């Protein structure tokens, strides 16, 4: 018996390691290749150099693009959560019949190609630009819609894991108004779902190109492409940096985003 299970465990271990290596290679080789390219010196035998990386700061458009995208990512993820969490809680508590409808609507952006969305957004942004603001930050409206399916899924899983109705009724009976219920009871118990939703939003916004490019807003990806035409080395360096940033975010979230009970059990 023990021998069999040991053999099975070993098999599983080998399978895991092989899978990890294969997928790791699939992800890491292109990134390594980009890194290799971005550190090439000028000329065939030139030594490795970080000139391209150092040069990022000397392209003000590139820097502006990075800042724009980071701001957009922050605004989009916060705005999405602020709108979506109370809505989803409310639907769960008061309008459970609408859940399917809300789910369907929130999944729609996934089924509509970005380029089609752009056609729809075009006139709206024309109007926004002339009547409200032509700041690139208005893109967060479009991005909030774009991240809806991902954020919805993550939050829905988080809400399903807690008894929203009983917890909120218990809090209300203890004297909590709705804002307190949200902030002190619901949110702390779905923190990992919130982090997941936020991360997905950030990752999506940092990687977005189609909408920004077609609506003529210079975000990170648009600047990357345009810089790539004149200085590929620097452009690739920025791309690697943004990928690393996403990795760091991911690791941070998987570290801090674990449910409290698991952490307390570990402790």
């Amino acid at each position, binding site marked *: 018996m023990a021998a069999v299970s040991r053999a099975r465990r070993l098999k599983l271990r080998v399978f895991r390691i092989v899978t990890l290596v294969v997928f790791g290679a699939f992800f890491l080789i292109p990134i390594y290749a980009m890194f290799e390219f971005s550190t090439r010196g000028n000329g065939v035998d030139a030594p490795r150099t970080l000139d391209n990386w150092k040069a990022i700061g000397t392209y003000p458009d590139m820097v502006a693009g990075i800042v724009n995208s980071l701001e957009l990512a922050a605004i989009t993820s916060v705005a999405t959560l602020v709108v979506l969490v109370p809505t989803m809680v409310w639907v769960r508590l008061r309008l459970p019949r609408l859940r399917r409808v809300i789910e369907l609507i929130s999944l729609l952006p996934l089924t509509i190609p970005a380029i089609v969305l752009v056609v729809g957004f075009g006139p709206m942004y024309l109007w926004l630009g002339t009547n409200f603001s032509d700041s690139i930050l208005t893109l967060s409206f479009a991005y909030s819609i774009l991240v809806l399916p991902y954020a919805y899924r993550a939050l829905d899983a988080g809400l399903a894991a*807690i*008894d929203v109705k*009983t*917890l909120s*009724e*218990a*809090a*209300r*009976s*203890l*004297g*909590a*108004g709705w804002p*307190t219920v949200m902030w*002190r*009871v619901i949110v*702390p*118990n779905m923190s990992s779902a919130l982090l997941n939703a936020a991360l997905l939003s950030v990752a999506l916004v940092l990687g977005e190109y189609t909408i920004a490019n077609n609506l003529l807003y210079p975000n990170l990806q648009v600047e990357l492409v345009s810089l790539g035409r004149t200085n590929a080395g620097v452009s690739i360096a920025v791309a690697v940096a943004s990928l690393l940033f996403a990795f760091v975010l991911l690791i941070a979230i998987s570290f801090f985003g674990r449910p*409290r*009970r698991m952490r*307390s059990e570990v402790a």
Partner: protein
Amino acid sequence: MMSTSRSGVEVRLEDLRRRYAGVTALDGLSLTMAPGELVALLGPSGCGKTTALRLVAGLEEANGGRVVIGGEDVTNVPANKREIGMVFQAYSLFPHMTAMQNVAFGMQLHEVGTEERRKRAGEMLELVGLSAHANKYAHQLSGGQQQRVALARALAIEPKVLLLDEPLSALDAKVRSRLRDEIRRVQLEVGTTTLFVTHDQEEALAIADRVGVMNAGRLEQLGPPTTIYSRPATPFVAEFVGLTNRLPGVVKGREVEVRGTRLPLVKPDSTDGPAIALVRPEAVSVAADGDVSSGPLIGTVIATVFLGATSRVTVDLGDITVLAQLPTSDAVALTAGTRVRLSLRTDPVLIARDEKAPTEA
């Protein structure tokens, strides 16, 4: 202790009504609870008892009627301003807080100072016997412990009324009866007027000052447990609370004749004709087959169930079966297959006319 000094307030439900999409859940419930009283609402599922409790809590809105707590009409006051304490059927502790933090949560919202809060939360946990578990999270506590923390949490804000919504039904039998007694002890100690909703008659009869039996959105009978059991006002109450034999008989004047035995009626105004007499198992006596003096009816024992001090004997009379409850010492000889004689005690009985027996939820 702070809570012992506090006396309860009167809670009045006046003609409360509630409909859900055409279905009447509560059809004019009126009930006055004396200060410090524990009233249990008992009934099958869907009888409106939980709706009644949620209307008192303010978690649902009434379509009509009033809720008056301590002389103040709170019908239109939102749940968080009603000063109620509530314990739910489902486990409701906040998972991200320790037992202590859960108990302190309500006081924090009521702006009780940190020191005072800590002290009182400690006292409340002590009251429910969980001081040793103050720093545990809900998932580290058993179901019974979680409900006790929930009780402490509800009482910590010194509510005007305590609402218990089937707090024991998720627990196993042994924990349930222990916690039931515990709830009663704590309730008597703090003296908070309490409404307890349950579908378990044993629970209701054991814990309450008065029991209200509900059926189809209405209060069928309200009275002390002993009255509810021994003098049920309606056939529904007779059949829902305790076990009851449904014996076919014929009403004649002020009596109903069942198999040759005339039993007086509780309500003598019934019209003559066939009816079902409702007879408690303890009003049926059984003796081993002897002469006619030991009982006019002859039957065969189908089964004897040992319940401790008493035993329940099922007797087949040919066309119907009758349940009898007798002291175990008298029932030892009555094994399955024994021929027995049976008689009915001539206590006043209620009758039903081809109504279906209510099923326990």
